[in-house]
C-alpha cells in the first residue's frame, strides 16, 4: 500500500496556503466486498497534524466519511519561503505516516 503524502505550500502576502494529498483507502466499515459478501473493515485516518517550523498549526480529526485519498487544504498567517511544513497522520489501525516539505 502506497503511503505517500504530497504537500504543496505557498506563501503569498503573508499568508501561507498548504495543500496536502494523502494516499489512504479510507474504508468506512459499511461497504461490502462484492466477491465475498463480507464487510470491509473500517480503515481510515483519524488524526492529521500540520506543523509549521515545529509548531502545530492545525489538527484535523476525521471520521470514515472523508473521501479516499484525502485532500486537505488550509491557510495560516505568517510563513516564509523555505520554512518547513510537516504533515503527519495516524489511522484507526495505528499506522502512521509523515512528510516534510518546504514553503515556496
Amino acid at each position, binding site marked *: 500500500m502506497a503511503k505517500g503524502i504530497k504537500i504543496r505550500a505557498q506563501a503569498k502576502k503573508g499568508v501561507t496556503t498548504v495543500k496536502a494529498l494523502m494516499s489512504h483507502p479510507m474504508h*468506512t466499515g459499511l461497504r461490502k466486498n462484492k466477491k465475498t459478501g463480507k464487510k470491509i473493515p473500517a480503515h481510515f485516518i*483519524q488524526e492529521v497534524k500540520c506543523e509549521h517550523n515545529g509548531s502545530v498549526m492545525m489538527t484535523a480529526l476525521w471520521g470514515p466519511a472523508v473521501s479516499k485519498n484525502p485532500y*486537505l487544504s*488550509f491557510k495560516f498567517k505568517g510563513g516564509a519561503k523555505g520554512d518547513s511544513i510537516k504533515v503527519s497522520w495516524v489511522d484507526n489501525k495505528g499506522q502512521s505516516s509523515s512528510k516534510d516539505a518546504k514553503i515556496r
Partner: protein
Amino acid sequence: MQRRTFLKGSMASGAVAVAVGAGLLTPQTVLAAWPKAAFDAKGVDGTMSALFGGASTTDSKDIKIKAPDIAENGAVVPVSVTTSISGIESISLLAASNPSPLTASFNMSANTEGYVSTRIKVRKTSKVTAVVKAGGKLFTASKDVKVTIGGCGG
C-alpha cells in the same frame, strides 16, 4: 484416547488463535483527542450534543460553504469552508444523511485563517453543515448538496 487428547489440544490452541485473531482485527488505537462518541453519534442533533455538549448554535452569514449544488459522485464531494469570524477554534463538517453525520473536525491554532477545504462522502441528497467554534460560541451555515450516486454504496 490419544485421539481425544489430540482433539483437546487442538481445540485449546484453536481458541487461543481465535482470541489473537480477534485482537488483531480490532486494534482500535485509542487517541485521546479523537472524539469517538461524536463520530459514532447518529443524527445531527446527537452529533452536536456529543461534540459540543448540546450548546446552542447561531446561524451566521460570515460562513461560506463552497460545495457543488449537484454532486455526481457522493464518494467525492469537494467542500470548502471560508469564514471571516475571528478567533476560531475549530471547524466541523456534518453531512446530515450519513450514518454518522460528523465527517471531519478541524482544530485551529491562533494563526490559522478561517479556511479549510477537503473532500467528503455524502450518502444521499442532504444538507452539509459547517459548524464554526469561535470564542466559545458556535456558528453554523448549511448548504444543500444533491447527490446522484451515493457515497457509501457497495
